[in-house]
């Protein structure tokens, strides 16, 4: 009987230890980085963009291995419903009802297999949209599916 117990315990210990050794392959557990802190980055927190004009969205994207995809969502924040992800607060206009708010949901291509990429993308704002407080939400993934968000408060004038 004792042999049975000992073998059981040994099996258990073996099971517990067996997969530990070869398990040290490095898995990516790092989120990609959206950098809007360099000189020339645009927009940044509290930036202003003008209706009827085109501005250049300049951002630096980094990942420890491979970048995935970049998505931008510009939506109104006239009701102050959401908050940016940033430290700084921006002066907000009074709450108002949207009439024809600007909405942009768009992907911005990143060349495949990059670790670092500086994006320069043209974004046009129609002349007839509501001015006011907007959110500029940047979503960046890497190949492994880690996603970083950056929600900036901007103004459309």
């Amino acid at each position, binding site marked *: 009987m004792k042999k049975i117990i000992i073998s059981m315990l040994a099996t258990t210990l073996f099971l517990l230890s067996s997969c530990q050794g070869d398990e040290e392959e490095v898995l990516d*557990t790092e989120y990609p980085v959206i950098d809007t802190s360099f000189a020339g980055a645009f927009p940044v927190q509290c930036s202003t963009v003008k209706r009827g004009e085109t501005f250049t969205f300049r951002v630096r994207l980094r990942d420890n291995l491979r970048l995935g995809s970049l998505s931008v969502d510009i*939506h109104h924040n006239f009701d102050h419903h*959401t*908050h940016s992800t940033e430290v700084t607060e921006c002066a907000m206009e009074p709450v108002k009802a*949207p009439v024809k708010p600007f909405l942009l949901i768009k*992907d911005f291509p990143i060349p495949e297999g990059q670790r670092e990429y500086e994006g320069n993308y043209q974004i046009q704002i129609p002349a007839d949209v509501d001015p006011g407080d907007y959110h500029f939400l940047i979503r960046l993934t890497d190949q492994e599916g880690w996603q970083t968000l950056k929600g900036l408060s901007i103004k459309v004038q």
Partner: protein
Amino acid sequence: MKLTLFLLLFSFAMNALGQNVSLSGKITDERNNPLPGVTVRLSPSMLATQSDASGYFTFPHVPAGHYSLTFSYTGYRQQVVPVHLVGGGTEVNINLYPAPQELGEVVVAGDRTEFRKREESMNVEVVNEVYIRRNLGGSLMKSLERQPGIKTIGIGSGQSKPLIRGLGFNRVVVVENGVKHEGQQWGVDHGLEIDQFAASQVELIKGAASFVYGSDAIAGAIDIKPHPVPPKHTLGGAVDIIGKTNNNLYGTSLNLYGRKERWFFDSRVTRLDYADYRVPTSRVYVYDYAVDLKDNRLRNTAGHETNLHLSTGVVEEKYRSVFYLSNTYSKSGFFANAHGLEPRRVNTEEQDASHRDILMPYQKVNHFKLINRSSFSLPGHEVEAELGYQKNFRQEFSPYVNHGYMPPLYPTRMRTPQTLEREFEKQVYSLNIKDNMAWGRHTLAAGVNTEYQDNSIGGWSFLVPAFRQFSAGAFLYDKFTLNEHWLLHGALRYDYGKIKITKYTDWFNSDVQTQEGTVSQALVRADSLQRQFQSFIWSAGFNYNREKLQLKANLGKSFRMPIAKELAANGVNYHYFSYEKGDPGLSPEQSYQLDVSVTWTQPKWSVQLSSFYNYFPNYIYLNPTSRHDYYYGAGNQVFQYAQSSVMRYGAEFEAKYRFLKHWSTEFLAEYLYSEQLSGEKKGYTLPFSPPPTAIINISYEPQFSRGPKNTYFSLDYRLTGSQYRIVPPEKKTPASQVLNFSAGTTLRVSRQELSISVQAQNLLNTRYLNHTSFYRLIELPEAGRNIILSLKVPFTLLRHD
């Protein structure tokens, strides 16, 4: 092939007939009056009977061998008598003596636990209401979390769902009064609609339990047993009062029960009311957005809960039929500065006006349940049937926000209220029939489980479509008593399931890029879909019991039918910035698990090691991809349901040592490892993998010849390891150490008994993160110091001697 297996099992059963003897006796009380209705259990074997009106009991055909007889009766001290059956008839006469506890305070779980553990090849732990009161947390699952291998996924202070060895959601079955509890198990922010004051005994089954509990019991089951039937000619009850300092909870639970000869009733009303809970920090960060907390309180995490229960029925010697009626209702707020992962701007003046009010976002959950449970005994058979109806109704309220392509202003034509973001209604009809048969040295159980679900949805956001679902399963289980030391187990089960998903179309138009350019159209989120599933599973195991040694092993296959969300999800969860995409082609998830458990018990110490190895060839996993979707996903990250093979193993260890008469120490530890062996996340773990934990306990239980009873002082030092093995979108969680203290006693004031228990959870007000908390992703720390005071006053209005 399947038929052959069944036939084999049956013929095995038939062959074992023979060499049977009869065992009978008479049970009397301390004054030699016959005691009817005493439960007599013969072990090893699953045989049980009750003494008749004259106190007699009989087991007509028992194979010769060594056994022990257990006599239990409410209000009386339990007795265990060893018997050796050789030939002819054996008679055992016994006197039972009243238990020192008063009515309403009857606890026989200790011995039942022992019995269950010795006779069950799966890993099973039994906890009773005393344990729950000593470890009372914000919900039943939180109260059970001290058990190795049990964790919770929690949100706020009142909602949590079970994780057994790292698996949760639809991979754990919760059973209440014999019927599977069906809520919104799939959702992250849904709790479990169970009143912990109404739980008398909870069985925790860790392992491949599908053969008993059907689909979903892949990780195990939590089986909540009703309170025992009160003794004859009594009328009594208990008042529970509870208070907590952290979230200023106050609550009460009133119980009233009574029984004449055959009829009894047991009723309960529970009410809990709590404020926003406090964390050991005055500022939290949602991303880089600093949120200042007033008085360290997490804004809008207050809530309240009202639960009603009534059970009534007839109990006779060979027949019992009981109705269980219950309704649990709760309303609770979500942290206001973040909805899911989305930072929210709040009106702090309005939010901080009161820490007891519940503003948006909040949820309301109502769960109604009506169950009839009946059983009757025939010679050699014990037939049980459960018939149940449940209605789960959950609503989530949040101000309308036009995410994605939703119109900027909420249209006036909409019938859905502007604040109703989500609504789920589930109606469930269940029928279970089971026959326990004693057949020589075999104890056979055969049965069927059927369930029909009707699910509808509401609200202006979309996550899962409406669906209807039918499932039925038939099983055969055999426990064979080889001799006094060996028990063998074998089980087979066949299941059939059918799911019918209802088409859902958006109520608003989205901009869609087609070959003709950008088109504005209402998207079909879910197409109507019908799928059928079949599954054949098995389980085999043994128990080897010696006086000091218990050894058990079980190997089993379990399964789970894909749920509606996994098959047909096609919506954006804006609060998580995820577009979840189902796969209509998913196959039923299968799991193979080996469990081995060894226990060694000495008078002063005991150790137990339970280990398991688990393999899934096709685990259903929600995979966060690198893509964003612009058709259905409104620019959000695609989370795609996929199947991959998964390996998991782990162990729980428990050691107890009574080093002095009144002093004891305990060490509890658990370890878990999971790895995806294929698919896009090959090499990664599974989400919500609990880190290794250990609890070092020291307890002092003084005994006084007069005065207080059941006195205890207990200190838990909980060490939680770091969890660096993560998978998107998780975050690494550092290690933490927390101290919990508890103490309690039972006093007698004049003739009135009174139980008091005190707990200090997170005694040192340590700031730490819990890897399996829903709020982990936005870095919210766990609750700070919480002193819990609970009082129980049992009373007897009438007692017939």
